[in-house]
């Protein structure tokens, strides 16, 4: 397969995406720390009060459930870090990057759905305050879901970019 030359200036812009990769990793670590601290605080309280192991396990699972949108978001940040890192190395319009972008979009939609539906519903079941499906669509969940759909839409543009690049690579 041939390698088309990068137009002047574009190469410099590509290397700048390595900064975005670093920023994504920093955010990922910060979010991971925040989630870890939250889970540790909730579980730690149960351990300190010396409750039995089932209560500790329940506290851990509930803390995990409450933090699940953030955990999904950590995965999305990981996707973006990988995407920006590969882009900085000149690997832009590839199937792998398309897959990563799609994964990030789906992740954001899942984070929104988890935050707005799954967490309130399961919490209501666990706390036995309800049996139905609860919707708590706030601005943040709505925005996150919308961004997810926007990214999923952009994957179609990206796929067209890959097709054009493949064609371009076959012209020498």
């Amino acid at each position, binding site marked *: 397969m*041939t390698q088309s030359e990068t137009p002047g200036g574009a190469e410099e812009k590509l290397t700048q995406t390595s900064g975005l990769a670093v920023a994504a990793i920093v955010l990922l670590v910060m979010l991971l720390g925040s989630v870890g601290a939250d889970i540790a605080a909730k579980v730690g309280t149960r351990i300190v009060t010396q409750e039995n192991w089932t209560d500790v396990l329940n506290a851990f699972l509930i803390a995990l459930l409450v933090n699940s949108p953030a955990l999904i978001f950590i995965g999305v940040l990981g996707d973006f870090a990988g995407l920006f890192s590969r882009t900085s190395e000149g690997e832009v319009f590839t199937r792998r990057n398309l897959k990563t972008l799609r994964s990030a979009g789906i992740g954001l939609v899942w984070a929104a759905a988890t935050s707005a539906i799954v967490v309130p519903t399961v919490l209501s079941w666990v706390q036995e305050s309800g049996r139905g499906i609860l919707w708590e669509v706030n601005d943040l969940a709505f925005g996150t879901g919308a961004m997810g759909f926007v990214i999923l839409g952009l994957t179609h543009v990206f796929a067209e970019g890959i097709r054009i690049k493949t*064609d371009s690579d*076959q*012209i*020498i």
Partner: protein
Amino acid sequence: MPRDIIVTLDVMLARRKMKAKDLAAAIGITEANLSLIRSGKVKGVRFETLGKLCEALDCKPGDLLDFDVVTSPNP
């Protein structure tokens, strides 16, 4: 019978008694890309590349390309 563009670069290389490696170096493309052009396994050739080929081989584009019946290579 289907007719298509045929690359006759090999013929011109033989006429000029030039090696593909030397031609690739002269026009500034990789041997792999030159091999793809020679075998016709490309969707197109840029005018810029065609011009460089003509200059290096001292010929015209018509000397490098033909339009004829394509014989499929043996599997």
